[in-house]
Each structure stands twice: as C-alpha cells, then as structure tokens.
C-alpha cells in the first residue's frame, strides 16, 4: 500500500478507504463540529432551512457551541446572536454549550475545545472559524469551514473534502529562551508567503517541535491558515497524550495516527531553531516579516496580549517574566483566552506575585476572556483600535482593518517581544531583557 502522511491517513480512515492520495475528493465522517456566536446563527439558519424547523442535529455528543467573539459588548445584535445559540442549545438539548454569563462560560473556542476534552488524536474536527486548525497540535485533522458546510455537517455528520498534499517543516535543536513558537511560525510564513500553503497541509516535526509544550504547539498550528494552509498537524507524543487523557473525562476512545515512513511530502524545509531570531510581521500582512533587531525603535501606541494564538498561560508567563518590576510605557491590554486561563492569572505566581498582580503593577489593563480586539468587533470592544494607531500584538492577523480602524498598523510578535516593546514604547528585542 502507498505510504501516507498523517493527514492522508486520518482522511482515509474517515472515508472508509484503505488509502487516499492528494487531490482525491472524498466524503468523510466528522467527529466534532464546533461553532460560535459569529457563524453559529447563520449555520443554524442553514441547518433549519434544509433539514426542517424540527430537525435534530446528527449527534448531540459531537456538536460543540462556544460563544466567544462578541461577548462583553452592549451591541444589541451581538447579544441577539448569543440568544440564538442559547435557544438552539436548549431546543436541541446540547450537552456542550458553554453559555455566556454562566459558570460554564469558557471564552476563545480554540482553547476551550482542548480544555473541555473535545480534541483527540486521529479525529476530524470542523469549525466555523479559520483558526480551527489550532487543534492539529493534538494530532488530528482540524480545519475551518463556512456556515453552509457547517449546516450540512450538523444534519449529516459528513462533508466532502479534497485531500491536500502535505508540506513538512522540521525544526532542529531546542528553542533558546528568547524565542517562542510565534517566532517559528512567523519565520515560516515569511519564507513561504501568506499563500505558500494554499490547499496544503503543514506538518511540523523534529526535536524543536517536540521540545515545545502543548500550548506552544497550538500556536504553531494556529497560524497555518495565515500561510493559506488547510490544516496544520503535529504527530502526537507523550506530551499530547498526557494532556488529552487528562481532559478526556468521558473516556472517548481515539486512535493516534502517524505519517508512514516513505510518505510523500510535496515540500520539505528544515530550520535550526538555535539560529533563528525574534521576528515580527509588519503591517499589513502576516508574511511581511522583519527581524526585531532590524526594526527596533519603531514607535508604538499600544500593546495587546491575547487571542487563541497569544492568550494562553505560556504566553502570559513569558510576558510576566519581562513585565515584573517594570512599568509599561504604552497602553497595554491583557486578554486571557478562556476563563480557566483567567483563573490561572490569579493563582500562578512568579517571584511570589500572581501573574495578574505583575500585569496590574506594570500598568496593564486586564480584560474578560474572549476574542476581544483580535478581530476588531463592535466599537466598544476591549482594546479595539478605534483610531489609526500602531499596535504590537500577540494575535495572528494584521490585514488592513483587522483590529478595528482600517488605517491602524498592527505588528504581530511573540509575547516576549510584545512585553519588551510595551516597556519601552517602541519595538524592542526581548534579548535586551532575557539572556
């Protein structure tokens, strides 16, 4: 049998075939469908339009609804959309709806999914959000879809996909303390361009990847869509299994899958991570790479630490390492991705102080867990760029208008670089603070 990549193998197993090849169009079975407040109402509309007002979702255990985008806003339409989700979850008796204003409220879906045990190796996850690819860090096939596709999955549990060819990126060596996964993925996107992986899978491999914790691996996979990738994936190891098993409270069985030896990769590139430098993506594209060292001193108005790619515990630990005993010189916004991470900021300590204390003492503002200003949102969104200012951010996208004002300039960088820049008010190399 032809050797297959991890992605090809998952797709083959979910289509009931022995093997598949890049370019094949196949129908696959879906393990989990996720939607949120921005695309959920449209998805539910499509589902009801095609399956009937009284239709039931194909499998209640497999539909996960996580309001996260426009939550802490007075925008009536945004609040109405959460009502639509709430009503649908009640009507369908969905066990995995994480309601706003309740104990169960989570925040950013891509972090909530693994925290609540909805990500497992070898599975297929579709979500109505392009950053659904984040879950590839758990060794599964995960990608973003639109409302129509999601409405179709909701009723049938199936979807057609085209098998993507796989690109492989190998990271050699162990990351130095001044670099983070964000530097690696921004370096990759800078190399291949924001269309360099269009219609392709991106598999990450090598000791540099396996030395990363699970949150950092999520950061790598999160941004494959910024290169146009269909999915990003990292084969599971003990770190993956330990995380998944600790969260898989329902003991849902799963089968880890690995690339075969001799599997064909359409592109391969190796990086020695010890030789990389802190990177930023300059306005207005994630592939507009610059080394921090080459543009240091660039004046900034604001710093933002949050989102699915930059609002996890690892990101805040890194930022706090630099911000402790310092004061920020520009407005600095801290947004934990989820309520669990928000609690972590209150309990985890660095030199005797909680991370929350460190951020507040430095003069940063801390918001409620949600997507917040990563994608702009309603005008009253915490941290939104309502004027044409310059912001350095741990988020994942900086196209014109992404964080609000269409003339705002957004620089994407690691939490270390963002924290160092918040202290000085201009783009700053974290090596000035970390050996």
């Amino acid at each position: 049998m032809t050797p297959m990549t991890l992605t090809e193998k998952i797709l083959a197993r979910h289509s009931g075939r022995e093997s598949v090849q890049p370019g094949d169009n196949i129908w696959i079975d879906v393990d989990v469908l996720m939607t949120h407040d921005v695309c959920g109402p449209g998805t539910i509309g499509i589902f009801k339009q095609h399956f009937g007002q009284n239709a039931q979702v194909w499998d209640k255990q497999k539909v996960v609804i996580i309001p996260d985008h426009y939550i802490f806003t007075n925008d009536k339409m945004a609040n109405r959309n959460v009502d639509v989700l709430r009503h649908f979850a009640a009507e369908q008796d969905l066990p995995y709806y994480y309601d706003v204003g309740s104990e169960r409220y989570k925040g950013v879906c891509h972090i909530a999914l693994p925290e609540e045990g909805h990500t497992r190796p070898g599975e297929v996850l579709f979500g109505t959000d392009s950053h659904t690819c984040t879950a590839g860090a758990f060794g599964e096939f995960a990608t973003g879809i639109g409302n129509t596709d999601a409405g179709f999955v909701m009723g049938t549990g199936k979807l057609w996909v085209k098998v993507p060819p796989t690109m492989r990126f190998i990271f050699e060596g162990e990351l130095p303390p001044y670099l983070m996964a964000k530097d690696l993925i921004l370096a990759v996107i800078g190399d291949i361009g924001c269309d360099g992986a269009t219609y392709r899978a991106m598999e990450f491999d090598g000791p540099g990847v396996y030395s990363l914790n699970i949150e950092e691996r999520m950061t790598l996979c999160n941004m494959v869509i910024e290169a146009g990738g269909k999915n990003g994936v990292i084969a599971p190891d003990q770190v993956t299994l330990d995380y998944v098993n600790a969260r898989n409270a329902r003991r849902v069985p799963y089968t880890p899958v690995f690339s075969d030896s001799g599997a064909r990769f359409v592109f391969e590139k190796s990086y020695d991570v010890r030789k990389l430098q802190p990177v930023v993506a300059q306005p207005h594209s994630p592939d507009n790479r610059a080394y921090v060292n080459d543009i240091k001193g660039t004046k900034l108005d604001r710093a933002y630490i949050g989102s699915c790619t930059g609002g996890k515990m690892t990101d805040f630990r890194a930022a706090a390492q630099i911000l402790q005993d310092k004061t920020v010189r520009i407005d600095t916004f801290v947004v934990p991705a989820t309520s669990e991470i928000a609690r972590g900021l209150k309990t985890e300590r660095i030199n005797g102080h909680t991370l929350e204390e460190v951020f507040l003492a430095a003069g940063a503002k801390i918001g409620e867990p949600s997507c917040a200003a990563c994608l702009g949102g309603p005008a009253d969104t915490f941290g939104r760029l309502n004027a044409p200012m310059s912001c350095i951010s741990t988020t994942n996208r900086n196209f014109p208008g992404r964080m609000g004002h269409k003339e705002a300039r957004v620089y994407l960088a690691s939490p270390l670089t963002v924290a160092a820049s918040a202290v000085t008010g201009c783009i700053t190399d974290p090596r000035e603070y970390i050996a």
Partner: protein
Amino acid sequence: MTLPANVSGKAYVLGDNVDTDQIIPAQYLTFNPAIPEEYRQFGKYALSSVPPAQAGLPKGHIPFHTEDEFVSPYTFIIGGKNFGCGSSREHAPIALDAAGIKVVVAEFFARIFYRNSVNGGYLIPFECAQRLCERVCTGDDLELDVASAQLHNRTTGETYALKPLGEVAPILEAGGIFPYAEKVGMLNR
C-alpha cells in the same frame, strides 16, 4: 444560484491578498445572513475595508458603491492572487452576492472562500492563468461564456481564456452542496 450560460456586466478590479476583513469588516458580522433583511445589509458594507488606493484598480479611489446603496453597479470582481484569504466567514461571499456580484475571477483563491462560494452557491469563482487584474480596468464591460470559460472584454476587444471550473462545476450546476449531495446520494432528508 445555478450556473447560467452567460454573465455580462461591469468589472470592479482589486489587487492581491484581498482578505475577508476587507471584503466584510468584523463589526458587521453581527447581522445574521439567515434572515433575508439582514442578508441584504451585507451588500451595503461589502468591500468597505479595502484601502482606498487599492479600490477600483488601476486608478484606485473608485468606491464599490455609494455609502447608502445595498447593491453595486458591478457584476464581476477581478482580483489578483490569494483572493479571499483570512477568516472562514461565509459572510464574505454573501456580501459580494448581496451586492450583486455574480463572478469573481482571480489568479487563485484562498481555500475557504472558494469552498464557501461554491458550496453556498453564491458566486462563480474562476481562476485565470494570466494576471487579469492588470489587463482589465474597473468599469470595463465584460461578457463571460461559462461553459467555454471565455471572458470577453467588450471595452478593449480582448478575450481571455479562464481555467475550466473542473471538479466544482457539478456543485455549482446543482446550486450548492445541498442539491449536489442530494443528486449524488449523500443526503437523505
């Protein structure tokens, strides 16, 4: 819509990497496309975050429509590389559809935008081997023969061969993923 034999109308030309935030900015995603009156609203805000210099090439600074209009005078979008990159929001092809666009021609598309255009039956996405965004001008009068994938520019007299629709043609012909799946026996309601 299902596949028409011909499409004709005016072209609106954009550049490379027109992302979904430019096509429909995030603050308008609060409208629910499943409600017809709100679907219409997306047309009003379509392409409202395209930087003015990039809007309506080659000159730029040509608005897609005036601020209070829901429908634009254009039928075709001509883009460059990686059209529709960024988010998975189906509101992007919906916004162009609501604004009256029937066909988008680009060198290539970002995957999710392409999929949403086809599976939702909103737009016909044609790829072209040549860089048409540098040959066609905003306002040019175009005529497309869908079956032969020939695009004729009545303003300049040129004819461009687009890439065949290929494997998505049957889905577009059926009118989207639901009627298509029904046809091929993948949907039993």
